[in-house]
């Protein structure tokens, strides 16, 4: 029930501004993809292309081998949840969900009701009167209960408090186990959500920076601490993301393939090697571009 998304040389231009530049990447089916990027990196532009909200200026976007834009069969497979303006929504949550239910073949009402209770959402208030966090939680209910083959959450947590966000994360994992689909979660809250990701996509200034398995990304990042000359020798052929020096001691953050032999040699020579979080990698990988 999950679908693969393939982008081939995709660009999106607004007048003179290039929001996306020659993106070629694949979102594999059945995985939870974390889409990370700084403000204005082009995350929402990319997602709106996948959801056929707009057409790319150049390139192709295929889902299960078929062009997305204006393709009824394919568009039905995509559920794009974004920070929608509900200022004029006078209906209640159950009425809003009814609309989704009427269009989404896999929509599960019992699951929607269960989520409404879990998020403690009021069912008798008009949506425009709800708090920002509650509106976001309603969006999450719409996205999860639709059980679309491709479910996209674009910063869906906005305004949600920590316990509500935790419910959101738990439900993604629980429902993915029972009803696997392709999730794309765009986020700024990297440290909070990284454990959800099977795959990590980082875009920066409209360009693809990284598209790797989560474990691979994490295994490639390391923090190296030790005597300055030893650390420099160790990190000579690695991509250095950040470095700090205190007296004769140096700490560098590196990104690259680290073989077992090399690691054990380093440990024997007194160099300390520690892990680097995805958040730190994201910060420093995108920082050097600016």
């Amino acid at each position: 029930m999950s679908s693969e998304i393939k982008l081939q040389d995709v660009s999106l231009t607004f007048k003179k501004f290039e929001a996306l530049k020659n993106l070629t990447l694949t979102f594999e089916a059945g995985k939870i993809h974390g889409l990370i990027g700084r403000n204005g990196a082009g995350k929402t532009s990319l997602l709106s292309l996948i959801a056929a909200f707009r057409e790319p200026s150049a390139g192709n976007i295929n889902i299960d081998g078929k062009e997305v834009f204006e393709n009824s069969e394919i568009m039905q497979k995509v559920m794009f949840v974004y920070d929608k303006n509900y200022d004029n929504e006078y209906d209640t949550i159950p009425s809003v969900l009814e609309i989704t239910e009427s269009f989404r073949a896999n929509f599960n009402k019992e699951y929607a009701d269960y989520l409404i209770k879990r998020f403690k959402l009021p069912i008798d208030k008009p949506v425009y009167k709800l708090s920002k966090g509650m509106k976001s939680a309603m969006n999450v209910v719409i996205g999860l209960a639709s059980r679309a083959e491709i479910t996209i959450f674009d910063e869906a947590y906005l305004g949600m408090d920590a316990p509500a966000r935790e419910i959101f994360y738990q439900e993604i994992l629980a429902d993915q186990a029972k009803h696997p689909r392709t999730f794309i979660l765009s986020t700024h809250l990297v440290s909070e959500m990284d454990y959800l990701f099977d795959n990590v996509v980082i875009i920066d200034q409209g360009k693809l920076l990284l598209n790797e398995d989560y474990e691979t990304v994490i295994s490639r990042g390391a923090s190296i601490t030790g005597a300055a000359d030893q650390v420099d020798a160790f990190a000579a052929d690695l991509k250095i993301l950040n470095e700090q020096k205190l007296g004769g001691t140096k700490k560098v953050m590196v990104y690259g393939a680290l073989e077992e032999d090399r690691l054990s040699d380093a440990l024997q020579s007194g160099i300390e090697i520690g892990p680097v979080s995805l958040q730190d990698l994201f910060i420093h990988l995108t920082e050097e571009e600016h």
Partner: protein
Amino acid sequence: MKQDQVYPKIARGTFHEQFKWSLWFFGFLTAAHIIGLIIVNITDEQLLGFFVFSTHSVSIFLLVCGIISVYVFMGLFVQQGVTRKDSYLGIAIAALALTFAVTLISLVLNAIEQLIAGSMSLPLETDVTNMFEPAAGWFAAACYYYLNMLTYYLVGWFIGVGYYRYGWLIGFVFVALAILAISINGYFWGDADLSSIIPLIPHSPADASPVIAVIGSLILNTALLISIRLLTKRMAIKL
């Protein structure tokens, strides 16, 4: 297979929503008409019957429905995985149905008013020279009313699409085009005498033959429908 049947669902949903709005609207309009009858009764004047009375208000109501249709429905449908084509077809069918519904409601309210006028004295004026006056032939009046009201919905939709797609500045160009469309429509139906501005064109076709007015109106509505489809065919949806 299922996807081929999306637009009737869109049409039903859009019609249902806009019909709810029209019931509210007719509630207010009927109240206004009753108040009007009470006032003219006191001042010893006469008011046109409900059908003719409603023409201006209903046309503005449909214009507004048309303007907001793209804002209310287009993004909603595309988010639910519906193509622009199906959304367009659905909204267009709903527009035809809504115009039919408001024509019918106006006719029925007019008939009720006539029934009441039969048993009690109401200060009503029947102007049989007015093409919308049912007393001069209700079926023809209803057809003329329908075509005119549909034009207002489509003109509204056209303006809405212009603003939605191009923003407020170019949106004004669409307002100008809409005024032109309304003027052409008025010319067909004898409201605007374009022959006084443009000397070469004949006097109002409605006076000459209602058939010419109907054909002109149909061509105008078709042109509007085609323009809206072309404008929305590959339109970006706002987030």
